[in-house]
């Protein structure tokens, strides 16, 4: 009795714990994800039944056919009927599973007739989003982890969306079929939103696609799921699903902002203007490798503080940042930023590195200097 009570309390405690923990698939927010959940549950029931059945026999044998209670060993070692049955029955079960699964596979692959097409580009270690077709065509931004380094290094308390927050979220309208084209700039990444049941590798040099249709508004969070180097764990994916009206508003705001904040490349900026802008560019693009201290992580990621390149002639540094570093005909970890950043951002970040930490050149690099080095 006491034993039973103890067991009951244990079970209850376990259920309580289970309630507080994540231990199933994330709630589905699309038809496809719901189908996946249903398939997963059905197959789990099947698996558990088979498991209990097979090991019921095993544990019964362990209990009833023990030597210690004097069970004599039979010597049978064949039974054609049984052997045929346990080959054929599993095969039939597999065929029965195959049909519903095949239907979902075909649905998952059907990316035709989308309402909105967005290209997603994996880069070490951020995501680029380009709205190619549909409402919002032409919107383009880069989405980077916005969790502060202090939280990662344990110097500040971690926020509720630790590692799952970005500066620019992907925004899509609810109830619309969104086709996502994936590609990558450097190595293989993988774009995934569990709530939509949508995952697709982003392969450099190739375009792949997937689709989802979100059935509820909200913010859905995930991470890159293909090992892509040092900061693989630090390139989240955040998709905000909004109503059709809110989406139109967002598109309008994006366009207006793009028009307003278009950087004026012809203007000459002051050192302070470029330094403060450069600090932001640095934080979004450079800090992962070269570190906030500018000391880098040698030898893979060299220090900028006291670097010969940074303190040397400005054109050499501009070329390095524009085109990346190529050794023996192969790109290294230093990526080319010519296509990712505009001339103002490049001028700002280069000015910043030449006038920060122990580097005190006092030099100001203007957007025009960068423009002149572009090929």
């Amino acid at each position: 009795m006491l034993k039973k009570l103890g067991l009951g309390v244990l079970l209850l405690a376990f259920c309580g714990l289970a309630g507080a923990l994540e231990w199933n698939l994330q709630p589905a927010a699309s038809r496809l994800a719901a189908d996946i959940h249903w398939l997963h549950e059905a197959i789990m029931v099947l698996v558990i039944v088979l498991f209990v059945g097979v090991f019921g026999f095993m544990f019964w044998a362990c209990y009833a056919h023990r030597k210690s209670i004097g069970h004599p060993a039979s010597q049978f070692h064949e039974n054609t009927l049984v052997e045929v049955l346990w080959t054929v029955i599993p095969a039939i079960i597999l065929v029965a599973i195959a049909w519903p699964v095949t239907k979902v596979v075909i649905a998952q692959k059907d990316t035709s007739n989308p309402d909105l097409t967005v290209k997603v580009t994996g880069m070490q270690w951020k995501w680029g989003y380009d709205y190619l077709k549909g409402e919002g065509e032409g919107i383009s931004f880069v989405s980077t982890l916005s969790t502060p380094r202090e939280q990662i290094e344990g110097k500040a308390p971690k926020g509720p969306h630790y590692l799952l927050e970005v500066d620019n979220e992907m925004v899509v309208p609810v109830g619309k079929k969104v086709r996502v084209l994936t590609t990558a700039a450097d190595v293989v990444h993988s774009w995934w939103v569990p709530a939509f049941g949508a995952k697709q590798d982003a392969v450099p040099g190739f375009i792949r696609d997937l689709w989802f249709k979100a059935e509820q508004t909200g913010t859905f969070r995930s991470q890159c799921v293909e090992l892509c180097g040092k900061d693989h764990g630090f390139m989240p994916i955040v998709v905000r699903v909004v109503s059709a009206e809110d989406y139109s508003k967002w598109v309008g705001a994006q366009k207006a902002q793009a028009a307003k904040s278009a950087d004026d490349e012809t203007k000459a900026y002051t050192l302070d203007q470029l330094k403060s802008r450069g600090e932001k560019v640095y934080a979004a693009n450079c800090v992962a490798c070269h570190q906030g201290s500018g000391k880098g992580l040698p030898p893979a990621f060299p220090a900028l503080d006291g670097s010969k390149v940074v303190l040397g002639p400005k054109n050499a540094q501009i070329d390095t940042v524009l085109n990346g570093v190529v050794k023996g005909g192969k790109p290294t970890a230093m990526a080319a930023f010519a296509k990712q950043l505009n001339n103002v951002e490049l001028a700002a970040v280069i000015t910043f590195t030449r006038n920060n930490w122990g580097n005190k050149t006092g030099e100001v690099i203007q957007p025009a200097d960068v423009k002149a080095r572009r090929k």
Partner: protein
Amino acid sequence: MSSAAADTHAHEHGHGHDAHHGQYGGLMRWVTTTNHKDIGTMYLWFSFIMFMVGGAMAMVIRAELFSPGLQIVDPDFFNQMTTMHGLIMVFGAIMPAFVGFANWLIPMQIGAPDMAFARMNNWSFWILPFAGALLIISFFTPGGAPGVGWTLYAPLTVQMGVGMDLTIFAVHLLGMSSIMGSINIVTTILNMRAPGMTLMRMPLFCWTWLITAYLLIAVMPVLAGAVTMTLTDRHFGTSFFNAAGGGDPVLYQHIFWFFGHPEVYIIALPAFGVVSQVIPAFSRKPLFGYASMVYATSAIAILSFIVWAHHMYTVGMPVTGQLFFMYATTLIAVPTGVKVFNWVATMWKGSLSFETPMLFALGFLFLFTLGGFTGLVLSLVPIDIQLHDTYYVVAHFHYVMVAGALFAAFAGVYFWLPKWTGRMYDEKLGQIHFWLTMIFFNMIFFVQHFLGLAGMPRRIPDYPLMFETWNKISSIGAFGFGLSQLLFLYVVLKCIRHGPKAAAKPWEGADSLEWTHLPTPVPYHTFDPQPDLR
């Protein structure tokens, strides 16, 4: 055989006592030995050392994942740890362990005096320490060891430092060693069986190794090709895996997994073989469905060549490709099911006892089947797309690799230790080792299924807060598991040094030649001349 003179010499003087071990004593005995028992022993110790090294890396991984945030290592080093943990455990620990069993047991089980190519056997072992050393040296090169995962996916491999090249050469050496070992095993089994030992009378362990050896010969060159292409992409201007030069990064994945999936069975089949010796022995009953076991093993081996792309459902294959690989993969459940049913039927109406080898064999059966079922779940494309590259996959393959292969290896070590050493291990400590291993294993990996379902990607050094509890449990389990293996070392050393003398046949149900035709401990030279089993 030019060593025949030395062998005859040893034979004349060494007959009847074990002290005489060839021309040399001390260290040179081990360097020059061509004796299958010596080489088997070296394989087993090498694999245990590598198991400890790879295990230490797993401890670093689990320590970093104990809490969210970066505490102990930087992300680069974390990636190096996951990469080397995988490579060392697969190529340094599990595979050599089973080659060690093959060396010790195949000649004794088929009534042969030694392996067919005794000196090549020495070489295939002695390549291994150099390969292992290359892997470890890579940590001390500029940029450290490669941080690309054990799958070495392109084009991330192009970004790595010289450690990547050392790893590539290590893989070449490991492949050479495996191929030579396999040729030896195939030749020994096909040509050196005692009169009357027909193929269908061989113990199942020999059968599973015969089939495994063919798999190795077929796929190790494929892996060597894949890493060589990586090498030339890195240094010689080729573009096999670089789209800008007309190549395709996904090509690497296809080639790798054409090796990688049969590799899963290269690891699993010898484990099946060990378990197929242990379960009948402790059930005191012949193996149920011997012939169907042989056919099922062959079927698994053949199917393993046409399912590789189920590791790549998310690369963007055409729908027909996904469907083909899904159907082919689910088919493997049929022969695997036959094997599980056969093992349970072997136990049914037997006379069971539960010494340590049997406990590990049952642990294998129970947990490997669980891993098989999660494999079935993952074989279905839509579910896999949700779970690919998450901790669900990590949990799945550790159920197959650790609870499958490692548990079987433990079962084998406890089963044959008395035969090898002439001494008994401490049964009580052995059972404690089993229960600790069993409990901590599940503590590490069962909860990882939940992490994967909830969406935690694999190979990340830091994670969102919602995954914290399961990660803590998993890490505690890992530390416990690691410590428990020190107990195993203690049990084995205690057995070798102070174990009580083993009976000639300590397991009453064991029925293969090494138990029925040879004394315990086995003499240095056995079955010369061969027994007549007709």
